[in-house]
């Protein structure tokens, strides 16, 4: 085996075409699947060899591509277009519910939906945050951080009230949404967002929660109105969820606060992040170069104008996954679901709903 490989390699040095042909032949000859070898030592040896071969080939390919690109640049030609890796998202299954920008029914539907009065600034959002009946440890600290993220949010103790009663109460007090943080074993694990006065109700699974104090080099948010970033909400359902989230925040961000709240949807998981950003003019490097080389003034002035954006995370961080969206306010018994996740819908890894 070893001898054969050497032969193949030496031939590979001769020329591209030859080596390809030879490789093919080689493969046909030395196609011993590791799984067909019964001796474990031999099997692992064969496996390791195969792996090494693949690695070498890959490296070669990369080198050749880089070289070709460099050559093209030197000759002033267009380099070959960069290949886009195939990911689960960009090979997503075609979905007819994805919203198109020229869909007049979509906009008419949006104008008529439950959130339009808030998003058109007819009403200012006022949020009631409450918990499940038992709440301790990470629950309260998560809520205190939510209160600092969402402006005009109020925390009320849950007590032993029914959620339906709380919805009634919040309607009377003119709240626009209710957030219920559900904890299980002292760990927040579900989030319920109820739009008021007439729905909808979204139930999310909450996972990988990291509180502010556990984030390294975290910043402390100011009380400015945050900017909101909603990424990748593409389908009808996604739009609806996006609008539900949007209606939690005031629609007039204060850009002086440089505070941004992000809901990023990727493969149906919604990632929450909270940042402060700053635009810095990089001067330290220029001063270095000044001191060392004292270059001509033109280069310096150009370099000075260079502005770099930096982010500082404020926390908390968490991930949401939609479990169900219910028409109307919270009603588990008689409610109508607009969307429920059912196991029979999981037909493919490449099928997404948001």
């Amino acid at each position, binding site marked *: 085996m070893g001898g054969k490989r050497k032969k193949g390699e030496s031939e590979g040095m001769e020329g591209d075409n030859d080596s390809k042909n030879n490789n093919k032949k080689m493969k046909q000859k030395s196609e011993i699947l590791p799984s067909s070898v019964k001796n474990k030592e031999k099997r692992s040896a064969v496996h390791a060899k195969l792996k090494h071969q693949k690695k070498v080939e890959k490296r070669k390919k990369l080198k050749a591509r880089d070289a070709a690109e460099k050559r093209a640049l030197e000759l002033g030609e267009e380099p070959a277009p960069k290949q886009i890796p195939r990911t689960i998202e960009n090979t997503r*299954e075609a979905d*007819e*519910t994805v919203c198109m920008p020229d*869909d*007049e*029914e*979509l906009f*008419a*539907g949006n*104008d*008529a939906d439950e959130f339009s009065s808030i998003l058109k600034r007819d009403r200012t959002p006022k949020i009631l945050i409450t918990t*499940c*009946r*038992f709440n301790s440890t990470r629950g309260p600290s998560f809520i205190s951080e939510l209160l600092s993220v969402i402006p005009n949010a109020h925390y009320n103790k849950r007590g032993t009230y*029914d*959620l*339906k009663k709380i919805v009634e109460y919040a309607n009377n007090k003119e709240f626009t949404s209710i957030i*219920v943080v*559900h904890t299980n074993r002292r760990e927040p694990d*579900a989030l*319920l967002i109820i739009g008021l006065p007439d729905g909808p109700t979204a139930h999310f699974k909450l996972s990988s929660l990291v509180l502010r104090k556990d984030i390294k080099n975290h910043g402390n948010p100011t009380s400015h109105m945050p900017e909101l970033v909603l990424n990748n909400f593409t389908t*009808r359902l996604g739009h609806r969820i996006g609008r539900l989230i949007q209606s939690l925040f005031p629609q007039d961000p204060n850009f002086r606060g440089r505070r941004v709240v992000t809901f990023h949807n990727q493969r149906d998981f919604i990632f929450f992040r909270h940042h402060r950003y700053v635009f810095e003019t990089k001067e330290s490097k220029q001063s270095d170069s000044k001191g060392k080389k004292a270059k001509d003034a033109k280069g310096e002035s150009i370099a000075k104008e260079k502005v770099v954006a930096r982010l500082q995370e404020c926390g908390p961080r968490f991930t949401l996954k939609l479990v169900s969206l219910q*028409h109307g306010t*919270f009603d*588990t*018994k*008689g*409610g*109508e*679901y*607009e*969307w*429920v*996740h*059912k*196991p*029979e*819908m999981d*037909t*493919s*890894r*490449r*099928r997404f709903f948001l």
Partner: protein
Amino acid sequence: MPRTTAVECPGCPPFRALTFDALGLIKGIEARGKEGGVPKVVERWGDPDASKCVLAASIDDRKTDPLLAVARKSGRVSNLHFSSPVLVVPGQIEVEVLNPLNGELSVTVSIVNSGSARPEDDAIVGLHLFRRQRLELTSRSCTLLTCTTKGNASIRSVEMTDSPADSGALKTWSVCASGNISCSQVDGSESYAIFGGKGVEVNMWDLDKCTKIWTGKPPPKNSLGIFTPTWFTSATFLSKDDHRKVVAGTNSHQVRLYDVSAQRRPVISFDFRETSIKAVTEDLDGHTIYIGNGSGDLASVDIRTGKLLGCFLGKCSGSIRSIARHPELPVIASCGCVCMHILHFGKLFFAGMALQLASQLVLFLGLDSYLRIWDIGTRQLLSSVFLKQHLTKVVFDTNFTEGISRRVRECGVGGANNVMVLEVKHSAADSTLHEAQSIGEVQSADETEKLPTKRKKSSKEDRGSRKKASKVKDGSKKLKSKKRSKSLENEFADDA
């Protein structure tokens, strides 16, 4: 390996259905082609306007001069002559209200609420367009039964004249003193109606005399002494000819069969899944019913025994609002948020199809904005159409052949707002229709010989293999979903 979902949709036999949605749009959906037609939205009437949300609809799909009645949120019932889509545009209906001179074939009726103030509080929940009385009367008028949430029922006849609607209510009565009506249904002979709702037991009325002839009685307290409050969400008559058997679905996920001639308490009552029943529809055979619930499960049940025949699995993720059974084809349609009226097929063509197909079509609409079409025999999803809005109702238009519909559309496009012109066109269309049918006879004879045999084969095979598979699957799926919903309940036990 990534699993793929090449959803094999076998396509469905040609049909035509109308769906109504929350933005007040009426969409016509047609499947063309003899074999495996893919249903498409072919017409859209109306402009999106949330205040015109369709609450109820009723169709009289006669061969000639079919009529469609639509109740909108603004508290008006508009009557559409739907072979002439020109008249269906809501904008024009509003124009009619303003300008009484061009209220032609379509009529708008404003329902004046006696007592309660705003129409939002007293929305229309039931609407029925009478077929029987229309035959007797002149073709230019029709009779409607409407029922509102507060229980104000009325029968009114509407003159479809050039003058604006003078909606003289023939009879008005109150169905219930308290509670909210949420379902109403008129039987096949159109002389009896049932009503039911939140806090209102199922009750039956004689429409000729306007008297209540029967009221249901709630089942006794259970062994723990707990009484579940009455809340009916859907009701239907079990068969066309018999007004005495009534099936009703409740909010506490129970389906009940009442026999008016026997007793006041339900004859059979069984539970279905864990969310409230939202739609119940009867089959033609008089003992099968289709039930749909709030979390998107659709099943057929033999009501004689209360046994589940099978579920319709098709990734339906939203509440089922309306189920329609095709009168001839073995198809049902359902909508999460959609309703459909299924239209008839051309007779000749259809006869061929019917011989070959033992199965039937069901349509259902759901809150997930899909219209789905199923085969009754195999319980296979034939096709689904995404309709963008929350749907409210679906009806079949049973007088449908490809030729006719095309002609109707042409005449609709060409038709001016003038009654005269339209009528001329109608008669022209009629004569051409006859021609087309006689021509079609020859053609369809050939076609039915060739094509449906193919269909027969495939459907037979399908059915054979599927029945077995579906039986096994249904069992396991049911178990699973039960588990899941239970765990869900547990999760929210704290919250509720």
